[in-house]
């Protein structure tokens, strides 16, 4: 059993009681909600005549269904309008803060939580979205829940959960140039498998993880769920503290100092014990790309597709085992999502465009969508939008966009998309036959410019 890890401490601090069957009633410090998975939960509250116990501990936004172009109301998509409208009504009826369409705080729930400083170390965080693991980058215990559990949190600010084991994943050494957090997490999932995390929380550590900025750390924790661990976290350090300083929901002055001490103190102790430790070398990781239909099916972009690759996935993708993925024609390029829709992602991509004078190849549809209004504003202040637009990208309004086919940004037919999102499941991007290649933002711009999948290291 794990001991003295951040996970153990934060879990214990939030324990309301332990049930005879071993489950914990866990207090949830921050509940984030969005328009898609919540309406039936609010309906159930009404039916059962319940109130929201801690309305000030829930924060709502709209992200999954919002269009990234024309956002005038009513939205053109009637169903999207209906869910947006329902969330607005529910937030009002139950006294919950909402960053709705047009609000400068609106954005993807996993981008705005940290961006606004709602997400803080040592918290427990739940949201009706599996990528809630993102917030673990700050040293919080954060996990995705279903709609029934959303109702539980609204009504009681608690959940019944079984404490998982804790596995430490240590990425040692350093990363080579043009290798990013996205490549690291794809390499981790490849190594541990898409079901390797069942029953575990992951603590990411090692020099590679410590050297990442907060945006990169969020990319790592974000995709934890793709390996079936519900929770992934990174111990808070001075980078965490520096990121949070001055954010809207973070206290100021002496209170900030006090809070910082408590944050830093929550990190796993040197005497921490883990249920399991896995080590990897950062130097071994190269720019990655998925070849299949789950995020574990990936290779270094310059490597051939493994000989033992799943034939069903290969058939769907139109690939062959033993053949390179490099050189495959690209139809669509997407930069954005809760995985790679943050300022550092756009800076990296824009820098590469500018440095190499890249233009999106003819016939490629390219889309860059900031994860939040704040990210968009920050990027535009730096002139990044112009770099993307001049290169041939459409610069969109913030939302989940082409990650998940719940808004107008979708693949058509058998299009192949190089995407910075998190899931290459069949049909994920909106076309039952559309194909997704998961990559880092740098790899996506390089491939968009070449019109085919390339190794970003081959750029000057």
């Amino acid at each position: 059993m794990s001991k003295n890890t951040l996970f153990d401490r934060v879990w214990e601090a939030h324990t309301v009681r332990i049930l005879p069957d071993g489950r914990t009633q866990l207090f949830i410090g921050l509940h984030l909600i969005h328009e898609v998975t919540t309406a039936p939960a609010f309906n159930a509250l009404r039916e059962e005549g319940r109130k929201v116990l801690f309305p000030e501990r829930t924060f709502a936004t709209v992200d999954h269904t919002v269009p990234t172009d024309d956002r005038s109301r009513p939205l053109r998509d009637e169903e999207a309008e209906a869910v947006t409208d329902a969330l607005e009504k529910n937030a009002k009826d139950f006294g919950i803060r909402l960053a709705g369409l047009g609000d400068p705080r609106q954005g993807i729930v996993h981008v705005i939580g940290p961006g606004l400083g709602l997400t803080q170390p040592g918290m427990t965080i739940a949201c009706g979205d599996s990528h809630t693991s993102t917030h673990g980058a700050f040293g919080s215990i954060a996990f995705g829940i279903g709609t029934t559990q959303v109702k539980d949190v609204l009504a009681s600010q608690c959940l019944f959960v079984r404490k998982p084991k804790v596995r430490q994943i240590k990425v040692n050494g350093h990363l080579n140039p043009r290798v990013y957090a996205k490549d690291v997490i794809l390499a981790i999932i490849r190594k541990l498998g898409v079901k390797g995390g069942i029953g575990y929380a992951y603590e990411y550590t090692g020099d590679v993880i410590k050297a990442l900025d907060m945006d990169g750390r969020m990319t790592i924790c974000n995709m934890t769920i793709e390996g079936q661990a519900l929770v992934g976290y990174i111990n808070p350090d001075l980078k965490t503290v520096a990121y949070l300083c001055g954010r809207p929901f973070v206290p100021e002055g002496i209170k900030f100092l006090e809070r910082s001490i408590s944050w830093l103190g929550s990190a796993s102790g040197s005497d921490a014990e883990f249920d399991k430790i896995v080590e990897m070398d950062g130097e071994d990781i190269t720019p990655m790309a998925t070849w299949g239909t789950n995020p574990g099916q990936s290779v270094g972009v310059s490597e051939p597709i493994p000989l033992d690759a799943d034939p069903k996935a290969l058939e769907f993708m139109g690939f062959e085992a033993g053949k390179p993925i490099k050189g495959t024609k690209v139809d669509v390029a997407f930069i954005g999502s809760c995985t790679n829709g943050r300022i550092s992602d756009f800076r990296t991509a824009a820098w590469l465009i500018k440095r190499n004078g890249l233009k999106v190849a003819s016939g490629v549809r390219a889309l860059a969508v900031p994860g939040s209004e704040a990210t968009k504003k920050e990027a535009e202040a730096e002139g990044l939008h112009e770099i993307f637009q001049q290169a041939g990208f459409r610069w969109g309004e913030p939302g989940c966009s082409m990650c998940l086919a719940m808004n107008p940004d979708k693949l058509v037919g058998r299009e192949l998309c190089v995407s910075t999102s998190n899931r290459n499941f069949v049909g994920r991007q909106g076309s039952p036959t559309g194909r997704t290649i998961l990559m880092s933002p740098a790899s996506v711009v390089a491939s968009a410019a070449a019109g085919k999948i390339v190794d970003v290291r081959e750029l000057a």
Partner: protein
Amino acid sequence: MEKILRVEGKAFCLSPGNNVDTDQIIPGKYMKWLTMSGFGPHVFEDERAKSKGEHPFDLPENKGRTILVVGENFGCGSSREHAVWALVGWPIRAIIGESFAEIFRGNSAPNGLVCVDVAPKFRAKLEEWLRRYGEANVCVNLTEMVVSIGYVDGALGFKYDSCTMPDEHREMLISGQWNTTEALLSVGEETIRKVALSLPYIGQS
């Protein structure tokens, strides 16, 4: 919810049925509905459209079958409870698999969907058996935690193996007490507030 002590019926397989994600179970375009019902006809919609009648959910012999046999990590990916609502709406009453993704599993019990784990060897046998004797009855017994396969004439207990599921889910199903909200609140608001106030980010702010 009514008590579920056993699910008995005819079964069919998704083969190999490994890493079946919730985007496949219910495509994203249906996530904009405000209700919990109506998803049943759309279960595996994209896959079924591609299979043109050959998908296990569309084969005439599987019509009316309520038990699904799957592989490992069933229900991975998105946390959407809509995936469970779609399966229940079909209606699927029980899923026998090698393993389930955690969020999917957590969503299943409160909706009365029985998800049990069996050993890979038993699943392979079960598949083989169903291929030969598809009309056989299958029974998932939650009192004894066994899966049994019977003859076509309905005589049960010919072949069986133990199955598992988290205790709390079993408890929910066999007691019919699936609404956890009441149980969470039974500790008392004051107790919950006390824990809240003991937290550095609440108590001292």
